[in-house]
């Protein structure tokens, strides 16, 4: 980044840095994803047929989880997304 800006930018150049990722530490008993997932489950929006404990994982453990899509209205994914099941 520094090399590119040093080589190419001048006072008329607008430099914009964007990212689609960020970092936060997991502080507490569960990750943010787990917390949101717990809320969805407790309120009946997310129903699993089978689900092992997945600890701090933030992505759906698609090889191990079996979601009951007929009863599921919403899922959580990657900390920041909640997807709505429009067919459910």
């Amino acid at each position, binding site marked *: 980044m520094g090399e590119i800006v040093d080589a190419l930018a001048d006072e008329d150049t607008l*430099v914009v840095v964007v990212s689609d990722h960020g970092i936060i530490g997991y502080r507490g008993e569960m990750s943010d994803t787990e917390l949101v997932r717990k809320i969805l489950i407790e309120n009946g929006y997310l129903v699993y047929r089978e689900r092992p404990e997945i600890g701090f994982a933030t992505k759906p453990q698609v090889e191990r989880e079996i979601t009951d899509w007929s009863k599921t209205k919403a899922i959580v994914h990657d900390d920041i997304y909640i997807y709505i099941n429009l067919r459910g």
Partner: protein
Amino acid sequence: MTQGRSEQNSCGKQLRAGKKCILMKWTGPQFPVTIKNGIQVDGCFCVECCHEIPGPKLYSSVEELHSERIQLKSVQDWRNIPRSHSSPLETVLKLGSRELKALLNVLIIDSQDKGYDKVIISREKDANKCIDTLSVGSWSKWMILNFEGCGKSIKGTLRLKLIELSEDATYLRIYYSQIMSVEGWTYPKEIAKEPIENVGPFLQRVGYIQGGRIYGAWAGYDTFIEELEYHHEWLARATRYLAKKYDWDLLFVHSHAPDYMLDSIIRRADPLTAVSEEESREFLRLVAKVF
């Protein structure tokens, strides 16, 4: 970056306004290209690329996940073998994809009477014509090989790293980087040869691990970081080269290095999710190195 303008805007909007763009791996997946007035370098995703011949691969003399097995045997028909204190051994690396293939011959010698320690890479079974000689932990120089099959012959760039060679040669592990075609990943097509000639071969993606799942190949964190460094530095060098040579109004650069790092390392760096304090310290060091 935008030149001579103060507002942020999208590439598509600027292009429609007649502005020139340079897109450096922006923003995957973004192939085939849609721009007509500018330059695009790649734009494929971080786990596969439509221009690679194959992705990264690991060869191993023992059975292990996500590797291709290689068999070592006594040398046959090799010429100009350097002095070896143990019987020289050989194997063959079958490179490429199902359709496009190339072979490299590998000679293993004991150069110092302390066990096998050198791996000689050569197209022919002639050590005088070798491409490179590797010790454990070293990378070969970049090479361009012809990959042939299905009536096609395509040039691809790659480099090898000797990951492991035990003294008795029971354990031999060799990693090769993603093999990229020398063309096809830029618009206009003829642009591709310029960064290759001036800043080096294009490494579009690296092997990495996420949540225990291997993407491409995995040869440990040191190799992962070395691949990331090349990938990242190439992007900076190629960007400087193209942006200095060609006119542009908007320059988009996408580096996936922080993303690879987050996927592979960050959970082991956070003290709350690392197995131990030692692990956290070691992986935080890797995080700092990437940034």
